[in-house]
């Protein structure tokens, strides 16, 4: 590390030496595992969701599936993992071990009950055995029992009720973990706040179907001939996570600190979550893919970034991008631009020509002799598809055009058919709506 950057954050009164936590999942299943993660540098852990012991937990087998794209493995992971299948006592003993040996690493206990007494019980035993904070699992995506997991997260009054129950049972801070399988997370987050939650964690996995077995028509993971809609995680869901965190961070009425997760693998992913309002971060799929060692790169990468920008504390970065996240009506649509090719660097693959013709503005011709695109500037839509496919980084860039510049309208294929067009200009106004 180039400079000694302090990555510590305070979150609901709990101090973390860095903002990177394992999220509640198979990667935080036992003290043996968490210990390794702490040795690697993780700042804290949200321990795998505790089970009161009332119901025995048996994980389906196999329990996960990987979604690959091209040469990239685990672009997303699909899981039908349940909450901890370990006896509650074993998990609590592991809490004690970790607190004794890693006193500077907070333990957040994830809990999930089915009714008030169970929530209260789990909250209390977690606190009594060293948990520094609680995370209420309102979001496990493949619970089928009403009043549990994401079913709670979708029944807002239950969020308030169970949060309140927990708050009344313990004195440590309480964070509610939300499901993304709703339209707007601000509303359930407000219910959690009303129940007394000190923070919101989001997102849990997105309900999805990763893949269908084409030989047997069983989606994956194929649990002996059956599958289910279950949780999708990993880099593919990052845009969804960023969106929910940003919306909650922008909601002044909510005003709670946020723990962000969903597809964090690199320091850039982490920084993006911070920029839209998260203070602490959680990760699982990145660890499932690369191991606990990813934290070295999260720490080093973020530290070097901060050193390079003379930023001394993480809180200075929290919500940095929020002022620029606006509604489309605020866009300056009179400012327009085109793409600019640094043709000396072109290798001549012509992928830009293909996408411009088939999905863009037909603004690139092709010099087959020299194997180079021939831009027709006035037709460029600035869709940027050419840049996306270009293998030469930085060769195709956006260029703003002067105000006087006009994009050429897409030509009508055959103006000879004009006389046959059945058409009248639409000139009605929308019906008046009563407003205050």
């Amino acid at each position, binding site marked *: 590390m180039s400079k000694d950057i302090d990555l510590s954050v305070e979150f609901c009164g709990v101090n973390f030496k860095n903002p990177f936590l394992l999220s509640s999942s198979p990667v935080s299943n036992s003290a043996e595992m968490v210990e390794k993660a702490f040795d690697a540098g993780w700042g804290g852990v949200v321990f795998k969701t505790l089970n009161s012991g009332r119901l025995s937990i048996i994980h389906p087998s196999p329990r996960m599936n990987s979604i690959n794209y091209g040469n990239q493995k685990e672009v997303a992971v699909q899981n039908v993992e349940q909450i901890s299948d370990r006896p509650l006592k074993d998990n609590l003993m592991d809490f004690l071990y970790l607190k004794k040996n890693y006193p500077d690493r907070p333990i957040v206990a994830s809990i999930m009950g089915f009714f008030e007494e169970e929530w209260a019980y789990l909250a209390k035993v977690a606190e009594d055995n060293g948990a520094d904070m609680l995370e209420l699992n309102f979001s496990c995506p493949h619970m089928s029992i009403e009043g549990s997991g994401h079913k709670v997260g979708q029944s807002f009054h239950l969020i308030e009720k169970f949060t309140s129950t927990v708050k009344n049972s313990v004195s440590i801070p309480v964070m509610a973990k939300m499901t993304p399988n709703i339209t707007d997370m601000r509303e359930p987050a407000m219910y959690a706040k009303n129940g007394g939650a000190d923070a919101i964690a989001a997102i849990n996995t997105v309900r999805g179907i990763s893949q269908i077995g084409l030989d047997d028509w069983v989606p994956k993971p194929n649990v002996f001939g059956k599958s289910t809609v279950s949780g999708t995680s990993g880099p593919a869901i990052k845009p969804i996570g960023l969106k929910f965190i940003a919306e909650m961070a922008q909601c002044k009425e909510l005003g709670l600190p946020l723990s962000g997760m969903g597809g964090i693998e690199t320091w850039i992913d982490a920084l993006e979550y911070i920029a839209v309002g998260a203070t602490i971060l959680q990760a699982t799929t990145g660890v499932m893919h690369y191991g606990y060692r990813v934290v070295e790169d999260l720490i080093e990468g973020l530290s070097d970034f901060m050193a390079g920008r003379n930023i001394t504390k993480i809180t200075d970065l929290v919500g940095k991008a929020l002022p620029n996240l606006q509604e489309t009506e605020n866009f300056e649509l009179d400012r327009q631009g085109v793409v600019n090719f640094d043709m000396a660097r072109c290798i*001549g693959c012509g992928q830009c020509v293909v996408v411009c013709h088939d999905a863009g503005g037909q603004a690139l011709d092709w010099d087959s002799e020299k194997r180079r695109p021939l831009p027709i500037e006035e037709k460029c839509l600035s869709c940027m598809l050419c840049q996306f496919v270009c*293998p030469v980084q930085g060769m195709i860039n956006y260029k703003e055009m002067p105000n006087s510049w006009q994009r050429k309208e897409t030509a009508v294929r055959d103006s000879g058919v004009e006389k046959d067009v059945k058409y009248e200009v639409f000139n009605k106004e929308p019906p008046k709506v009563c407003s205050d």
Partner: protein
Amino acid sequence: MPVTYKGWRIWTVKYEDNFKTMPKGFGYAQATAEVNRCLLCHDAPCSKECPADTKPAEFIRKFRLKNVTGAIRTIKENNILGGACGVLCPTNRLCEKACSAKFVSDDKPEGADRPIQIGKIQRFLVEYAWQTGFIPIEKKDEKTEKIAVVGSGPGGLSCAAELAKNGYPVTIFESRPEPGGVLRYGVISSRFDMDFLEREINDVTALGVDIQCNSPIDKKAGAEKLLDDGYSAVFMATGLWAAASLKNNKNEIFGLYSSVDYLSALRDGRFNEMVENIEDKTVAVIGGGSVAMDCIQTASKIGAKDVYLVYRRSYAQMPAEPEERIEAMEDGVHFILLNQLTDYVVNKDNQIEGVKLVRTRLGDSDESGRRKPEIISDSEWVLDADVVIEAIGNTALENSPEWYPSVTVDEKNLIKVAPETGKTNVDGIFAGGDAVRGPALVVQAVQDGKTAARAIVEYLKN
């Protein structure tokens, strides 16, 4: 694993199985990773450089988009010997050369920094079809006109397959006991093995092509006779089975082989006999092409004490592929460059004892664009050798014009054809491959077969 055997480093695996198998190709994961590296160029340069129009850009795109069966179909429909070409093609000077060479820029991003390994992907797809039992080509409605193909090498097989696809009943006449021509008798198994060859030939016979082995037509006017016997057209793809040699009466010298004899022996059951001749001996191979490389590679791996390669130009002018040259040197072959064979040294029993060489220097470029060797006077010397293999080019058999007396041939006995159709001067007789071109590539013979087949289809319509 290389081990020392009788003081010489050999590759035990290859030695123990008499070089019967070639190294494994790409598996599914490797092939997928490689196609994912491809940039899927517009106006793709690789496809333009395949002499047989195998359309690499198209089959790679199909594979990339998980249309694996379609990718296989593209290969096999365009090149029935797509597997053989995938293994044997000098792709580094054809499709793969075009792949990255056309990217002229300061930048070499992933996908353009080194060529996509097109040959290996192609071989994988063909092997994958065999593995999964996928049959990419359907036969068309039966037609009645019978067609004869002479020679079951790449040109003959390609022509036969193309005609069979069009519904014509085709019979291939092969003089040797097994089909394949140069694919069977002209390459070594560690480069292209029999099992692979059998599978690829099966793809041809599965289309209904009948291959008659041990059926030479080299009686007088064999080709014309086929037309008289009711075949509507004849395609001659008889190859080049005589070896160029310094001496015409070389058969009387013991221990002197042509590359044709030597390589055939390794493939046709005389392997052990050849091992006895080579083991612990000093072998001199004359020539600088891929065939010479096959000769030195096998000689050194069989256990020759020393293997010398004698070439009259220098390293840079050798026609053999760079990898073959490097592999040979790594195997311990001694390259004697800028030396030209002038005569053989034999004892009283006509057993070879060495070769007389004369030193050369490089002069101006010749018509091939390579600098010409010029003999340095008074520089003659003798290289002792127990076995000498001449690999200085194949030629047409001396009597070959007698098989088709009405067909015009040139001074080297190569058949004259119209290149765009493969038509000879005789109505109904077509020709292609090495018998027309002189020594050329498998992939070029494949194209000749296709070209002639299409011309035959047109010819039969009229």
